[in-house]
């Protein structure tokens, strides 16, 4: 009882056209991919040629100066490090704790949906808004001034939603049979989380952490909003010192390049340093992910 609906001849006639369309579509997708890569390559070429000859030991270890030839970025590097030292542990603790609460303790329902919706919305709030929040609350209301702590707290608020969402996803990816095994032996929820769930989720949580850190390193707007200075001579040495960071340094040098063309080269050189730092962070995230991914 062979069916006879498909005309083999017609199929043969159409086939070259169908194959051709497939090739065109494939070409379009390849073109889209290429577009991003080409733009990135042009950007890299541009900053590297602009900064050529400017990146040297002196540049990395000197403080800023009005004299472009003597200016360095040690101040911005120190400020960025200070920021990371506070933002990292703070967001890790708050973010993972929030994620654990939402994923493991709150039952699915309205409360959880309410929290989750708000956190996702927070993740989408423009960074300048966080800057204004930081300016109002930390700098003015709490009277901190534009210091390391105020900047770090502002930046923590900014990346916290990212850490929470990434940690939630990491916890959700832990297979439920592992939890069942632990509960089945009479473990409490906390014992199960501590001994089984967290160790299994840690690689993904760390990956999310590092991505959040690379976001925090590159953010400029919120720190400009809280008013960190354009020029900084003494290096920050504590939570209540003034500071500046790499992207803000880039921003001010780019603006001043209208007055002194050499400053554009300094900005380009700083961009290269920032990109290298971010590249290292992202590579670490990928390494961690690959190392632990195959465990389940």
């Amino acid at each position, binding site marked *: 009882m062979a069916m006879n609906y498909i005309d083999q001849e017609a199929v043969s006639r159409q086939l070259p056209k169908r194959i051709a369309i497939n090739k065109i579509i494939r070409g379009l997708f390849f073109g889209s991919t290429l577009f991003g890569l080409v733009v990135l390559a042009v950007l890299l070429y541009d900053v590297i040629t602009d900064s050529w000859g400017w990146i040297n030991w002196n540049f990395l270890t000197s403080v800023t100066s009005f004299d472009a030839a003597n200016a360095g970025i040690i101040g911005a590097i120190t400020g960025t490090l200070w920021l990371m030292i506070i933002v990292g542990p703070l967001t890790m603790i708050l973010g993972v704790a929030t994620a654990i609460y939402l994923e493991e303790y709150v039952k699915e329902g309205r409360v959880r949906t309410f929290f989750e919706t708000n956190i996702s919305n927070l993740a989408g709030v423009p960074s300048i808004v966080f800057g204004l929040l930081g300016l109002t609350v930390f700098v003015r209301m709490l009277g901190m001034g534009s210091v390391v702590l105020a900047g770090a707290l502002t930046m923590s608020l900014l990346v916290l939603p990212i850490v929470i969402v990434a940690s939630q996803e990491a916890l959700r990816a832990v297979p*439920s049979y592992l939890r*069942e095994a632990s509960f*089945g*032996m009479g473990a409490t929820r906390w014992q199960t989380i501590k001994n089984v769930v967290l160790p299994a989720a840690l690689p993904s949580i760390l990956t999310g952490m590092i991505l959040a850190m690379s976001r925090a390193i590159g953010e400029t707007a919120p720190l400009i909003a809280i008013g960190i200075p354009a020029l900084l001579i003494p290096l920050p040495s504590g939570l209540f010192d003034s500071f500046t960071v790499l992207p803000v340094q880039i921003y001010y040098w780019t603006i001043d390049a209208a007055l002194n063309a050499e400053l554009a080269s300094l900005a380009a050189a700083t961009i290269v340093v920032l990109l290298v730092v971010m590249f290292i962070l992202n590579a670490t995230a990928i390494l961690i992910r690959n190392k632990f991914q195959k465990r389940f």
Partner: protein
Amino acid sequence: MSQVSVKQNAKVELQPQGEKAEAKKEIVYSTEKVNLWYGKTHALHDIELDQREQEVTAIIGPSGCGKSTYIKTLNRMVEMNPDVKVTGKIYYRGQNIYDRRFPVEELRTRVGMVFQKPNPFPKSVFDNVAYGPKIHGIRDKKLLEQIVEESLKGAAIWDEVKDRLQENAFGLSGGQQQRLCIARCLAVEPDVILMDEPTSALDPKSTLKVEELVQELKAKYSIMIVTHNMQQAARISDRTAFFLNGEVVEFDKTDTIFSNPNDSRTEDYITGRFG
């Protein structure tokens, strides 16, 4: 809570009980009029079942008949699903398991569970077995080593893993993983062991090993086993309950169920007319 468990662990040392237990077997679990809903789906209807000491009760029935759901009500694992509602009474050695004064952690310490899919932790063989004793407060390394060894021997897997205790449990075969999970369960020194289709993911040879093991464990533990496999139920159980559409159609001695069932539906299922 952990204090109590430590004492318990020290007292009961994986030893066979005396012969007088043979005379009159006590009821360990009794289920009275248990109904269960998943959201609006009525999954269990008026379940009445008793589990006796040192016996194997098999629960058979077609897919979706509620047998796994039932066994998970016994250690309240069914509550992992937030939409579940249970009514009726389940007594474990005379204590209502839904009584607030009877913490679920204590229940699950006395009632172990082996799952359908072997679910070792991504830890070493040793750490898998030591997990239970550790969460119940045992820190002494010598004691832990002893518990691990005895539990692995109890689960008939010691000879296969004694030289690789520090290796990741994921490196074991499926059958070995399942016996490791049984060892992990024994390490908590349970009174009852619930097994939810423990051999459904295993090859015939590993299945046989687990079945033999169940026969050995019967001397010390009360076992309730859900199975798809009627021959398995016939081979290893003392009593069999036949579930259909969330109801217990028939519950009797295994011999009776398989040779002279009361209900025509039981006979149809056993003779392979459906299911």
